């Protein structure tokens, strides 16, 4: 495991940095999708895995970021990159506002309420609230990336944009582990009551985790909007949230597990196109099988970092 961290990750990052130059445009597009969804899955991991909150509405924040970028670009002519601060801050703010009143809800209810947020979001954009979301069609025809006035129209530019976002996310997650907030979340997961008794304000840290996860997902949304030059409601339906939720849990809330999960879900179907219609059937089967064989995920987080929800609790009724 140590070796993996020392050599595996740098190797993977080097491969990722070089790879797109060797790919044809179709596989570049697949690789970009992989990067975007990895970032969303990691942001979901902050909320679900690191803070232990049953969130099944991550596509909401992802979609919010994408829509913010699309609206600012198509309606107000902002360059794509200039929309980034808004695409991070607004979802983060919504993360705080939405999670505030519900943070104390029991796990299953939190699940349903977050699904609800996701569905309300979809209805808002479908109903073209304020006439800016483009209704059920969404918004098409965004500009290309541009940096200091230079147009970066190639897919390669989008790839490296996505790659930079992934690296940033990895950096944030690494720092989170070491920071005060990360330690607080760690204690929270280990023992909620004990954490409270030593003076950790659980509410604040949980909301913080929600906001952080939402902000990163929003940033991934910007990359998404850039890649497809379009946003539309169905890309952020709650079924997407279900997939991110499942990827984190099937993967085991660890870096390699999540990479593996995103790879299986979004890249394998591209390789085996003839199985495209079987994709969800097979994925569903794999989810069941993975949970039965490895209830803590295919690649569980290392010992000592095991999230609370992965630890078996007694289910005696009162």
């Amino acid at each position, binding site marked *: 495991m140590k070796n993996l961290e020392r050599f595996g990750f740098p190797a993977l990052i080097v491969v990722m940095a070089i790879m797109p130059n060797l790919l044809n445009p179709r596989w570049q597009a697949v690789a970009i999708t992989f990067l975007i969804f990895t970032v969303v899955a990691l942001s979901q991991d902050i909320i679900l895995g690191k803070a232990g909150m049953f969130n099944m509405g991550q596509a909401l924040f992802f979609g919010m970021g994408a829509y913010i970028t699309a609206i600012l670009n198509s309606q107000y002519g902002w360059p794509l990159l200039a929309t980034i601060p808004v695409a991070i801050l607004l979802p983060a703010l919504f993360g705080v506002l939405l999670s505030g009143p519900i943070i104390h809800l029991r796990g299953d209810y939190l699940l349903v*309420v977050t699904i609800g947020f996701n569905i309300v979001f979809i209805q808002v954009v479908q109903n073209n609230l304020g006439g800016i979301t483009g209704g059920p069609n969404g918004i098409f025809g965004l500009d290309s990336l541009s940096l200091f006035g230079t147009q970066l129209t190639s897919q390669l530019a989008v790839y490296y944009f996505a790659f930079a976002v992934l690296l940033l996310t990895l950096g944030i997650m690494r720092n989170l582990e070491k920071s005060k907030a990360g330690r607080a979340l760690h204690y929270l997961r280990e023992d909620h009551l004990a954490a409270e008794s030593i003076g950790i304000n659980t509410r604040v840290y949980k909301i913080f985790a929600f906001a952080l996860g939402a902000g990163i997902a929003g940033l991934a949304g910007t990359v998404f909007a850039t890649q497809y030059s379009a946003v539309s409601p169905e890309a952020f339906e709650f079924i997407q949230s279900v997939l991110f939720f499942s990827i984190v849990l099937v993967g085991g809330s660890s870096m390699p597990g999540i990479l593996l999960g995103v790879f299986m879900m979004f890249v394998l179907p591209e390789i085996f196109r003839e199985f495209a219609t079987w994709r969800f059937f097979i994925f569903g089967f794999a989810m069941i099988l993975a*949970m039965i064989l490895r209830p803590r995920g295919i690649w569980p987080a290392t010992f000592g970092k095991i999230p609370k929800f992965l630890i078996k609790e007694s289910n005696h009724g009162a």
Partner: protein
Amino acid sequence: MDIFLQQLANGLTIGSIFALVALGYTMVYGVMKLINFAHGDMVAASAFVGLTIYTQVMGQATSLVAVIAIFFLSAAVMACVGIILERLAYRPLREAPRLSAVVSALGASLMIQNGIMLIWGPQMRIFPELIPQVYWDINGVVISLIQVLILVLSLGLMIALYLFVEKTRMGAAIRASAIDQDAARLMGINVNRIIAIIFIIGSSLGAVGGLFIGLYYRGITFNMGWQYGLYAFIAAILGGIGNIPGAMLGGMMLGLFQAFIAGYISSTWADAFTFILLILILIVRPTGLLGERVAGKV
């Protein structure tokens, strides 16, 4: 007033379908503390199974006997699917962390939904008009035969279920298993069998709900289960999850609520309002309207 009464009738019809489906969620949750995400897709599957039974087994006969036979056969098929589902996807995870079972349920949902697509194809399938189109106009409020059938049959099934659970020994055993599985085992109750019974009842009621959807709306699609499953699950929570009369009340309330929202405010905002209602109720009254019948913790 006509409109109000008409919307009331509309709401009660769809509400009783929600209630039937909600019972499956609430019973499984009550005993297993598991959100059976696959339940909605089972409901969708039952509509397809019913259609196939009609065309392949019944030879498209449209007698009353044929319709009744479709109900019983589909319920039987879905009960078997329910038992298999529980055995393969949930039982091995009985002792596993809570969320593993949730993921397994989501996996089962994807599998069933896409299984329907692989078997019956992605396009909409259309139910024959098995219930004659008969309407009664009562002072401007039009009620159709199928609405009456749905309402009466649903209420009948719900009352039967209520009596079974509240008044029989097996019913008491089900309630006991929901409260405390170990204590139930100490009474000599075979909890595995109770869970199987619950899946049989829940899946059969869901099958009836699925057939109602097919007979009433006629067009069925492989992915319609999510929608009904979600509404029904909300209904179960509204009423207080694990609480059988609660699921019935929640289903009816949700049907009425949606009819009035769609009728008086906007049909395109119905989902949003539904969830806002749910969130408000959970914030004000976290255990649903009638309260939970089980002390669960996560």
